[in-house]
């Protein structure tokens, strides 16, 4: 091998290395650019949500004859309190010893709910309970948008600081999913602001349709906070319908209501049916109804755990009716397609009751979800 060919080989290897380096740098540059664009969009979405929330609060401020200075002071106070509400965090209980953790989570959730409600009530004392519930949902959606932006921004800054290609790639890979969530929350802001039913309200909507169809309004009771229980007769069976109390935006306290039913009505229920919205796969059609076994309740899992606990204690079969929709649809104003699927769900429930129980049986039906815009 002569000197010239060695030099050629070295040069080729050097050029290859240069190209590999440039290619990686180009890839980083492209990813950084795209992540920055998306981060800007998430920030805009967050800022817009904060602005909508603040404006809604300002509009609901009681009119007074006080001076302009005091009015401005009040508005500043509102802005500051909303910033605090949007920034607050919930600390999960320690799970080193998981025994009794569900009780602890429930306690923390209840304290959070009560505190936020009281905070909003103290800011807007003259506003109705339903509107307070909608405002809580609005603040919640804004908080999630704020968290998403802050979390991604933090990770992006760390990745840039340490020039970590792998961290950037992870953020980049997450962008489609995060964008879907931000889209859903943006739509939720509009729905919560106007107090209109969202996709997730389909469970309470089905329950409401059954209550109206079988004239259940006259037997309605509110045994636990934010939750109604009513008795109707379907195909000769005694059906207890449980749902969050609308039309304010709340998911109710369904597990407490079920406990109340077992304590006050009796232990002999032939089945518990839950109706809820479920995430669809990309290829699936929105509004498709599927049946399942178990308790169809999303969220942290406290209510699901408690209902499963009661059902297994008294050996009650658990059936679920699920209405498929995308994450965006679940948080956006209800679509016509989904609204029409509620009627289909009602007939599926009637069939399930007829086929899986006998006359004079007692049945519990739970309409799961946020009951915003859906009475009773």
């Amino acid at each position: 091998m002569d000197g010239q060919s060695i030099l050629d080989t070295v040069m080729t290897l050097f050029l290859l290395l240069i190209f590999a380096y440039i290619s990686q740098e180009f890839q980083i540059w492209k990813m950084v650019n795209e992540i920055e664009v998306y981060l800007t969009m998430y920030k805009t979405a967050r800022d817009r949500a904060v602005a909508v929330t603040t404006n809604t609060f300002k509009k609901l401020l009681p009119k007074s004859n006080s001076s302009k200075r005091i009015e401005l002071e009040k508005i500043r106070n509102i802005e500051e309190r909303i910033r605090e509400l949007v920034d607050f965090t919930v600390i999960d209980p320690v799970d080193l010893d998981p025994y009794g953790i569900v009780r602890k989570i429930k306690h923390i959730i209840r304290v959070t709910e009560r505190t936020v409600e009281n905070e909003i009530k103290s800011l807007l004392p003259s506003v109705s309970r339903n509107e307070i519930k909608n405002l809580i949902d609005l603040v919640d959606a804004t908080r999630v948008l704020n968290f998403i932006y802050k979390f991604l921004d933090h990770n992006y800054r760390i990745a840039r600081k340490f020039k970590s290609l792998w961290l950037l790639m992870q953020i980049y890979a997450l962008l489609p999913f995060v964008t879907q969530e931000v889209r859903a929350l943006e739509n939720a802001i509009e729905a919560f602001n106007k107090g209109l039913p969202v996709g997730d309200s389909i469970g309470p909507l089905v329950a409401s349709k059954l209550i109206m169809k079988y004239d259940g309004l006259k037997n309605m009771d509110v045994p636990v906070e934010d939750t109604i229980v009513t008795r109707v007769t379907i195909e000769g069976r005694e059906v207890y319908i449980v749902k969050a109390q609308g039309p304010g935006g709340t998911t109710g306290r369904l597990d407490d209501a079920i406990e109340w039913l077992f304590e006050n009505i009796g232990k002999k229920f032939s089945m518990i049916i839950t109706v809820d919205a479920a995430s669809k796969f990309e290829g699936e059609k929105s509004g498709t109804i599927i049946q399942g076994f178990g308790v169809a309740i999303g969220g942290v899992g406290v209510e699901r755990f408690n209902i499963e606990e009661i059902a297994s204690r008294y050996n009650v079969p658990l059936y679920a009716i699920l209405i498929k929709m995308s994450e965006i649809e679940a948080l956006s104003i209800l679509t016509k397609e989904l609204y029409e699927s509620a009627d289909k769900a009602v007939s599926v429930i009637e069939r399930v009751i007829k086929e899986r129980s006998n006359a004079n049986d007692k049945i519990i039906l739970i309409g799961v979800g946020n009951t915003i815009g859906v009475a009773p």
Partner: protein
Amino acid sequence: MSIDERILEIKKKWIPVYFILLMALIVLVLHFILMAYFTKKQDYVNFALITLAAAGYIGYNLSKFLNTTISTYTIVKLVRCTNCNYSYEDTNVQKEDYILKEVGECPKCKGKTLIAGIYRIEKKSKPSLLELFGLKKKTNK
């Protein structure tokens, strides 16, 4: 402005760049074809093919930009009479409206009417070429 509209805004900025690039590449392809025809050199055919592939790629991306659709929707309430079941859709949805709210009398039988449903009807719209090139502002119908 929703996130979809913001994505469209960002995409819109690139449309003129892609369009100019596509035109330049087409001119270049024609030039190489003519050169190959008159000089009978194989090199020009190769150049023309490579440039054509690049033009195809740019054209494909441009067509994707131009086919971007934006979803718009109308919120509707379905009002139904509890007596005669007569129902109609109303686009005048108020902030205080909710399902099962009483909304007056039935125009047919004077019975009680309730809001039986509130939902949105979606419509996919494609921005016009003028809107995409930023020559005309979007009109809210």
